[in-house]
């Protein structure tokens, strides 16, 4: 059981490495990997695909900033945030806006595992936990 899990993880990582071109995740390469898996059906195909999906999703999330905002947000602000994050992380980060009125006001920006909280709802949650 443990060795099967190890095999699955190793195979998924190999596919993940093959999905990069010049250090950037390539849609073509990902398609190529999927085609290979479809054709050759390695052992534990489903588990391998699920592990591969997790790795690719994490990489996509690292290159994408989801900017949740309450109320209107102009494109210039979104672009400025994306540029600042690209500089901070040293890699290209694209911004995606998502309206979330539950924030009340302010922004919440998620890049990969990092969350930058400056919304009113977030501040109130911190206040509530402290009190």
């Amino acid at each position, binding site marked *: 059981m*443990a060795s099967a899990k190890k095999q699955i*993880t190793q195979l998924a990582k190999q596919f993940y490495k093959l999905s990069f071109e010049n250090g950037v995740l390539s849609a073509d390469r990902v398609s190529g990997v999927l085609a290979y898996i479809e054709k050759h059906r390695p052992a534990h195909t489903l588990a391998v695909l699920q592990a591969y999906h*997790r*790795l690719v999703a*994490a990489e996509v999330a690292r290159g994408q900033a989801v900017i949740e905002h309450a109320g209107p947000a102009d494109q210039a602000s979104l672009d400025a945030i994306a540029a600042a994050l690209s500089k901070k992380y040293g890699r290209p980060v694209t911004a995606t806006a998502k309206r979330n009125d539950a924030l009340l006001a302010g*922004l919440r*920006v*998620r890049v*990969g*595992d*990092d*969350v*930058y*909280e*400056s919304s009113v709802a*977030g*501040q109130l949650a*911190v*206040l509530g*936990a*402290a*009190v």
Partner: protein
Amino acid sequence: MSSVLEQIEQQIAQLSTKAVKKNTGHIRTVADGVARIDGLSDVMYNEMVQFPGGVIGIALNLEEDEVGCVVLGDISKLKEGDEVQTTGKLLSVPVGKALLGRAVDALGNPVDGKGPIAATETNPVEKIAPGIIVRKSVSQPLFTGIMAIDSMIPIGRGQRELIIGDRGTGKTTIAIDTIINQAKINKVGLASGDPKFRPVYSIYVAIGQKNSNIVRTIAALEAAGALEYTIIVSAPAADNPANQYLAPYSGAAMGEWFMENGMDALIVYDDLSKHAVAYRQISLILKRPSGREAYPGDVFYLHSRLLERSARLEGKGSLTALPIIETLAGDVSAYIPTNVISITDGQIFLETDLFNQGIRPAVSVGLSVSRVGSAAQIKATKQVGGKLKGELAQFRELAAFAQFGSDLDAKTKAQLERGARIVELFKQPAFNPIPIELQVAVLFAMQKNYFDAIDTKQVVAAANSLKEFFTTRKDALLTEIRTKAALDKDLEAKLQAALEEWKPTFNG
């Protein structure tokens, strides 16, 4: 109500409007007290993580594609996909005198129903032990109140002395007697107003025990008036293994507060065998490689880093440790016992055979040792008890030999008689620690052969009579022994006179 409003206003004023960065992840699986998390790319080893619903955990396994966290709380509230955040903090527990008299869990939350604890400080649960330069050698005695130990296996403040034996041999009783004795000494010392007196505060860490046992222990401490100087850290068998794993470190953090603030403390870990089992369970669930007896490879480090935190510090206080280990069938060469024996500064070995013979405390004098030795004894005890260990060793040798025949010379017979009387003298009921000055008086009587004329079976009664005589009629003499801590010619003469006064009163 106005204080509640003030509290909220203070929090609002402190609230920062800057963006706060958090590192997050999502639960992939949760089972057996362990959550495996995707993400948490910035988490550090042993960092506290926050689960939904106020549940906290500790990151113990940092792997390439997931983080394994032990959950310290109600795991039933968690599910796959829940968001987890890092806190940037190590696990800390409340410390300070506010915890005295209270029972808390491994995280420092009160479990005795006496309301919240007004602790103002916290200490990290995991901390690097003091280095070499800041330590001071052990030279102050820690009196257990148990004559067999104080006279032959003396313990000093800052020492680690292991209590080891099979189940039901009186290990916990020795620890509780020591705590009760500290409380008695504290009361007398604080009442005397002596500015040089240093009380000893106690911490009792219960790991993996039955709740009924813990309640009984607390009741015994309360009945003896010792609870007000004691902190109880409770991680019973019903608690999850993560809490049982953390409880000794939490107790050590509480003890370190006393040590760092110039006070002396005693900590009892009851017991480290169950602690090792809890750590084994966590490690196996985290899929760490297992070694001998399925324990993880760092089980030695588990206990060495805990026990090294007990020390005596230069210019500060001390933390004395009494770890307890349970053996199976008296096997001291098993894995965990040998590990802890090699870490500690001595051991008190309790034998089942002695216990069954009625010799209680069932201390095996031959196998027990204190590596600090007489450096932790007052001069008076050395004067009256210095030869006891040797006499008992001779007695044991001769007793085995004497079984084969009855033709013994007078000297051998005398040694056997004397040894048998010493064994009887060291019998002591549970929860009845004897003050050191009274021990000196009793051992002086033994040294001066006052028990030689008394039948062996009457020695216990004679000793009790002697103790009662001194306690009720020679209190001033006992105080003098306690304050001088050494027997000069004058004190010896007074003791001799007192014994001559006592002798006709005992009709043995």
